[in-house]
């Protein structure tokens, strides 16, 4: 069988194997690669950095385990950043598969930084209703989430004493991997309640939010694992996202190679046919 025919009918499992190795090997033997912080990520960083110490911030973590590789690093870094400024964080989750994994991140970072549940942070858990929940929060957060993820009464927590609705927060941080998420918050909340907003989203959906950045509705944006890695660099940290940059780089190079190789095979095939 000619090389062209072999490549044309190549079992895609060979491609899967190569991708697997390209991702696995750099994870075991990391390589350093330069990272530049883009202005979108810098905007995200600066929006949190400019908060007065001790502010209470609303963080909506709308993702579930499927989005973990991209969302976990940015969630953890953002929480560390907020806690380092002694900010208090009120967390909501609008994805039904999300509360558990979001709580895991909160506990991880809070334990690391010695923060206390109910005083420094609270996880209000999941509420069904998508955009309707976002709009209801504009009336009262405590009424929309009467109990938190641990079953306690929301209004009884010290952190919630001064929290009423969106006007109680100087900043909304939306970490989202789809619907409902950042886009719905921009459409339903940002313009209506005039709250400053930053977002962390998946790489595939990040371009969708560039118009909101340009219009000033979003002050900063983290796009996927690369955005999370840049944010870690801006914070002087080196976490999961930074470690993931080399495997991601190799995977991207391989996909680029696949595009060129696939077309090369077709070109060779046409040449053989003409010959």
């Amino acid at each position, binding site marked *: 069988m000619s090389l062209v025919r072999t490549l044309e009918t*190549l079992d*895609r499992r060979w*491609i*899967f194997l*190569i*991708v697997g190795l390209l*991702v696995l090997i750099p994870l075991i033997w990391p390589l350093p*690669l*330069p*990272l*530049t912080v*883009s202005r979108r990520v810098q905007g995200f960083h600066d929006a949190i950095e400019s908060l007065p110490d001790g502010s209470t911030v609303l963080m909506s973590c709308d993702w579930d*385990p*499927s*989005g*973990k*590789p991209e969302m976990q690093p940015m969630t953890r870094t953002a929480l560390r950043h907020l806690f380092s400024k002694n900010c208090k964080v009120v967390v909501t989750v609008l994805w039904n*598969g999300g*509360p*558990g*994994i979001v*709580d*895991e991140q909160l*506990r991880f970072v809070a334990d690391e930084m010695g923060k206390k549940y109910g005083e420094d942070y609270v996880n209000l*858990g999941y509420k*069904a*209703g*998508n955009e*309707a*929940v976002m*709009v*209801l929060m504009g*009336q009262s957060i405590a009424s929309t989430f009467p*109990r938190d*993820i*641990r*079953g306690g009464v929301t209004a009884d927590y010290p952190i919630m004493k001064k929290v009423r609705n969106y006007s109680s927060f100087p900043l909304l941080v939306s970490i989202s991997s789809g619907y409902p998420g950042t886009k719905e918050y921009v459409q339903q909340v940002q313009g209506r309640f005039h709250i400053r907003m930053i977002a962390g989203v998946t790489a595939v959906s990040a*371009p*969708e939010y*560039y*118009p909101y950045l*340009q219009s000033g509705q979003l002050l900063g944006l983290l*796009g996927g694992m*690369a955005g999370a890695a840049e944010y870690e660099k801006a914070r002087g940290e080196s976490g999961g996202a930074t470690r993931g*940059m*080399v495997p*991601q*780089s*190799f*995977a*991207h*190079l*391989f*996909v*680029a190679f*696949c*595009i*060129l190789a*696939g*077309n090369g095979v077709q070109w060779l095939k046409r040449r053989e046919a003409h010959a």
Partner: protein
Amino acid sequence: MKREFPLLVTALIGFFMILSFFVPHQAVSVPADFLQVCAVIVVAFGYVLGGANALRVNFDAIYKRQPGWPYKIVLVVSLLAMVIVGAIEGKGFQGEGTRFTWMYERLYSPMSATMFALLAFFIASAAFRAFRIRTLEAGLLALAALIVMIGRVPIGDWLTGALPPNLRLSAIQEWIMDNPQNAAKRAILIGAALGVMSTGLRVILGLERSYLSGED
């Protein structure tokens, strides 16, 4: 009346919610907020309906020994286990250290992440198989794709580090994303938004009524 009444309700509530966007007065905003709360409750009840449906369909399939029926037993057992364990745990069932959380972290979470991880492999195979450059436009698309793919990761700057900053791959990909990509995306979004409005208007006015039931 079977079709007319739902159409009338749809029209009234549809126009009322549009009105609530423009009229902040309590005569409109208070009922609109009430309708939002109703929407939240209906969505929540939808899950109850969904669970009951899932059980009904799968019990039926198991009883009739349809193809793949052993897997349906696994599905039903998993569904009931999560619901029963969660109910036993009570209010704080998603808290740290509960059995529900154990099942979530050890079963649901890895499975969900694994399915999403499949995308990385499928993208590579789709790129090899299907991304064909047959026309000038496809060639430009491929060029932009290559620049953006490599420019968005650190290796792009590493490869073009010797060039001036605004000629490096990351700068070029940022220009592509900020300008032509943004413009095209906005155009598609505007078109899609008009499509949404058009469909919504057809539904509200009852021009589009096939979703109610099939009989005219």
